């Protein structure tokens, strides 16, 4: 996973609430067995017209937002399906940071696992950042993870919260499994305890 430290990039505004993961990547594109290659289908129904050509009115089809690496939306971003294909599609498109007043839990989690930084900021600040985003390439936002601030084009700094553990994992580009396996001894002890307390727990086998 790529490290996330400081990102200075074009931001795109999608001023909608409840952008669900079906909208980010429709189910018919989930037949892949890979993590990559989904970027061309990101926001498919908004991005392409019925006959398959690009919808010129959609922000990610316009310059300079084709190069957007930051996305700003309204509440409850990523609701619906748990599909990690949603952050994979965003990442493959080039998005590394999503900003919204609130996120659906599973999507929020899935972003971190892929080196995408989700930032919760109040609605009025999201409105201000959407105003910045509308200025396009003249108005790059800077997301400084070590200092936990979003820096607006006029230099104003907006602080944000993040779990220390998740921050560490993003900064170092670490994956969770290696971290958890450092606690394998405790997992084994737990298993032995449960085997004593709940011996009736069935094992599954179709043999």
């Amino acid at each position: 996973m790529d490290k996330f430290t400081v990102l200075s990039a074009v931001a795109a505004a999608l001023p909608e609430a409840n952008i669900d993961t079906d909208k980010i990547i429709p189910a018919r594109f989930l037949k892949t067995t890979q993590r990559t290659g989904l970027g061309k289908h990101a926001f498919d129904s908004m991005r392409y017209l019925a006959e398959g050509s690009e919808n010129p009115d959609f922000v990610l089809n316009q310059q300079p937002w084709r190069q957007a690496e930051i996305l700003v939306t309204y509440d409850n971003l990523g609701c619906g399906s748990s599909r990690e294909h949603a952050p994979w599609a965003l990442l493959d498109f080039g998005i590394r940071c999503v900003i919204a007043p609130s996120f659906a839990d599973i999507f929020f989690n899935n972003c971190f696992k892929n080196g995408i930084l989700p930032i919760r900021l109040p609605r009025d600040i999201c409105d201000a950042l959407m105003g910045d985003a509308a200025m396009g390439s003249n108005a790059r936002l800077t997301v400084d993870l070590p200092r936990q601030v979003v820096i607006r084009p006029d230099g104003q700094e907006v602080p944000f919260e993040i779990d220390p553990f998740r921050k560490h994992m993003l900064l170092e580009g670490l994956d969770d499994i290696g971290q958890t396996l450092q606690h394998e001894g405790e997992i084994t002890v737990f298993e032995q305890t449960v085997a004593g307390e709940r011996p009736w727990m069935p094992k599954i086998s179709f043999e």
Partner: protein
Amino acid sequence: MAPRTLFDKIWDHHVVETLPDGTSILYIDRHLLHEVTSPQAFEGLRLAGRKLRHPEMTVAVVDHNVPTSDRTQPIEEPESRNQIETLERNVKEFGVPYIPLLSANQGIVHVVGPEQGISLPGMTIVCGDSHTSTHGAMGALAFGIGTSEVEHVMATQTILQRPAKNMRVTVEGTLGAGVSAKDVMLAIIGHIGTAGGTGHVIEFAGSAIRGLDMAGRMTICNMSIEAGARAGLVAPDDVTFDYVRGRPFAPKGEDFDKAVAYWRTLSSDDGAHFDTEVTLRAEDIAPSLTWGTSPETVLPITATVPDPAQESDEAKRVQMQRMLDYMGLDAGQKIAGTPVDVVFIGSCTNSRIEDLRAAANVAAGRKVADGVRAMIVPGSGLVKRQAEEEGLDKIFLDAGFEWREAGCSMCLGMNPDRLTPGQRCASTSNRNFEGRQGPGGRTHLLSPAMAAAAAVTGCLTDVRELA
């Protein structure tokens, strides 16, 4: 010890270790896999040279991407076939118990788990699917995870989590005629909204919930995710234990008694703290359905479509108008009487035998309206067989319904079961998002009885009028 909620108890029983920042390593008792969200996880294990820590706590089944037509024929779409063959290779290589496509036990993972006794009270259960919340009806802590977490559970049998907040939704009273668990859950989502449960685990309580059978409780917990919650729970009781007894993987004999003694400790203590409490009266809930493209756009069937002009928040007003345009509805029109093109009875929300009985009850002696395509997709091979033993297939076929094989089908339109642009569908599934059932498709979420009523009248109909 301070009074604890049901969620607190299951959580406490599964914490391996809590890290200094408050993140816990939570032990997982059951890991359910399907073909769509597992291939990248298996690939990750392979690249890192890792194995499954506990294949015997893991079960794989194909459901999302399988055809619901004749299974003796090969799968036509090469990508779908590849995804299923990939799972079959992976379960063989990693030694995972697997229910193949042609097994009589095959079905939707959230129907199969409880049905086989794979999901039991008090367990932690995860699956790379948001509707894993369904298993909360057993009194288990069950939630959907992403593919990276699937790989994490495969390798460590644990997941990294912070404790959720506790919400209790209490529904007291007696449900009226024609009102089902689906209507109760739609009413709850309409009340608290699609983000109302964010960060919470919801415990469903009250006499109306206690009075539901297991299928009804599964319908309720299934759609907890549509209320934004991490999971839904119903405290296990005699209804639960009667359901579990005798299932293939349930504990047997003395083990069962020991298990029940433990399961009986799993309820919220008097005085336990809930961060959020919501109460509904069962008598206030009518047969309901959604009008828009978010599951919170709930109406009683007797109501009219809302008017965006009455919404003061501009962003909401714009979104409402877009929903009306997408759904082809006008503000102020009566929702009942709107013609439908397709009726879909199925999905992990409503494809159990009880759901099919409710639909058959309405369909019996009637005919599917001209021009309507009506599909019944049982939740599992066993549900299908049971329905056939009860003669429900004959009722449906005589009425002009399609009687199909088990799978997720038109709930998400991964397989060929899809709406075409502009088609309006009365659906017992869980999501009405734009394009969910096929690009341009229009979905109204409702109960199996209401779906059957739409099929035989050709329009959205108050099922009570067919009584």
